[in-house]
């Protein structure tokens, strides 16, 4: 990959070297548009939020903000809503991660075995439909699906299967232990096709002779999966686990759309609390909200580094 593209040997004079250096810096022009956006709306804001987190900045208060040192962080660490919010996010992550990794892995192995080309494409296409529906639209759909009044899920449970009566029917997104699992199920549904494609790309790179050889040696399905498929999917698997861990801990749109700002609901996690503080409560204490954001991000980063460590040691 790192082959140099100046294979045409030319007489190298001082002028020529200067010209080469100039030409290579000019190559940076290709990165300028991307970097303007990347720095302007990602790198700079993150640094800015970090700085705000050390001030008593309230958006709606007139006058300049004052530095308060670590006060926001001290307060946040003692704030029960922060601790509870992090725990709730962690609980959701634990419910969501296994489903969103293993179900697509299982499906990918199945789709990979479909020998009929057309059927294989058809399965892939159907499974990928949710991947072309934007996340928030998925959340809106499932908010309706779980709805008490018109939701088809409760209709199925009450009127068709008679497992519940109208009184006892589960309130999926209400104040109950069901809210986070219900959202996790929706997330798995949403990522089904996309993650299956991820694994299929990994499976496609495994030479089929390996399976044939294993079969000749009398390996059963499980042994073939464990000794042939799994080691080759490991890199894809690890990246997915880490990426999805990150997205699960930082979920916010789902909670805002499905739960709103009710503190009693399990969906009121640290992310919702941060938004609530920064853009709605009182005079918008954004200094404190920024500190909570950074505490959450730091907690996540610790786990991400930890995960990378574990995975690296295993190889």
């Amino acid at each position, binding site marked *: 990959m790192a082959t140099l593209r100046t294979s*045409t040997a030319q007489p190298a004079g001082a002028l020529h070297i200067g010209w080469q250096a100039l030409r290579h810096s000019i190559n940076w022009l*290709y990165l300028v*548009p991307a970097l303007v956006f990347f720095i302007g709306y*990602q790198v700079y804001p993150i640094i800015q939020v970090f700085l705000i987190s050390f001030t008593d900045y309230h958006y709606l208060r007139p006058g300049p903000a004052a530095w308060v040192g670590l006060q926001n962080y001290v307060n946040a660490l003692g704030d029960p809503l922060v601790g509870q919010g992090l725990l709730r996010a962690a609980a959701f992550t634990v419910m969501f991660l296994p489903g969103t990794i293993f179900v697509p892995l299982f*499906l990918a192995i199945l789709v990979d*075995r479909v*020998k009929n080309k057309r059927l294989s494409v058809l399965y892939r296409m159907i499974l990928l439909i949710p991947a072309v529906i*934007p996340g928030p639209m998925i959340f809106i759909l499932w908010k309706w699906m779980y709805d008490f009044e018109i939701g088809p899920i409760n*209709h199925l449970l009450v009127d068709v299967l008679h497992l519940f009566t109208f009184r006892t029917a589960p309130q999926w997104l209400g104040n109950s232990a069901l809210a986070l699992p219900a959202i996790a199920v929706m997330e798995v549904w949403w990522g089904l096709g996309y993650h299956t494609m991820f694994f299929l790309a990994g499976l496609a790179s495994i030479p089929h002779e390996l399976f044939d050889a294993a079969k000749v040696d009398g390996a059963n399905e499980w042994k073939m999966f464990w000794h042939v498929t799994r080691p080759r999917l490991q890199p894809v698997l690890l990246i997915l686990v880490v990426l999805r861990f990150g997205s699960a801990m930082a979920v916010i749109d789902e909670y805002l759309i499905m739960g709103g700002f009710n503190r009693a609901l399990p969906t009121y996690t640290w992310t919702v609390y941060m938004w609530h503080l920064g853009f709605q409560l009182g005079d918008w204490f954004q200094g404190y909200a920024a500190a909570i954001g950074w505490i*959450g991000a730091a907690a996540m980063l610790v786990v991400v580094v930890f995960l990378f460590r574990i995975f690296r040691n295993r190889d």
Partner: protein
Amino acid sequence: MDFAKSLARPQAVAVTSRPRRGISLRDILLHGTLIFFCAIVILPLAWVFLLSIKSIGDAYTGSFWPEHFDFSHYGYVFGHIPTLVQNMLNSIVVTLSTVVLTSTCAVLAGFALVHLRLPGRALVVSLLVGSLFFPTRLISLIAIFEIQNQLHLINTIIGLILPYVTLNLAISILIMRGIFEQISPEIVDAARIDGCGSWRTLRSVMLPLVINGIIVLVIVNFVTAWGEYLLAFTLTNDQAVRTVPVVLASAFGGMGEWDWPRIAAVYIMVIVPGIVAFAVAQRWYMRGLLEGALKV
């Protein structure tokens, strides 16, 4: 392979229980499971589609298949939800701008990162990869609000487009990098020997070769921008400049124009463009995914 073809011909699709021609219990289990999962994917979408063409009465009975169809909701919402046309226009403008800007940035950057000499390339790549593991979108929110506020871009369309470009920028660049890596550097060398500068190499030699990757970019960025909620919810509070997802998320089975079948009709109109675009471009999309977009 020949075996597979002969199996496919005589409607092996309808998995009958006749154990002839090698249709085994294994196949039945395999296809049965896949059909089951496909049904799970399709049923919620079928439900909301049926809801959008149910009569108002049927919508509240909970039954899946309506007794009376009513196709008037689609027309009705345009006349009765005052800002709907504006919201849809907002969504279209924001999405198109975001897709064009992000894809352009990603193609230029991906090309340079793979095929040009670039001092400091490793730094750029590690920053991009690093940003994937950081909850950037969430943490940067407060400062993005401040920036847009100082630039007087709160409650404006352009104020949404600018941060939208960054939502998928890192991943888009890495996708394009993966795609460009599939192209042999000899092609660049050959173009150079023919006297092409890097710009002409990209435009006339490379672009046709990476078209599948660009289709992946367009679809990925379309989906994100078209449905973006958090930034739109935070940076706008005027119903007339909001995008459709924000409007829909706050609409919850009320009366009149907010009746269930009517908001379901809006819903269908919002998700159909993406599904149709995908159906049309799926061949190239799948190819692009396999060509390297998934090998980030």
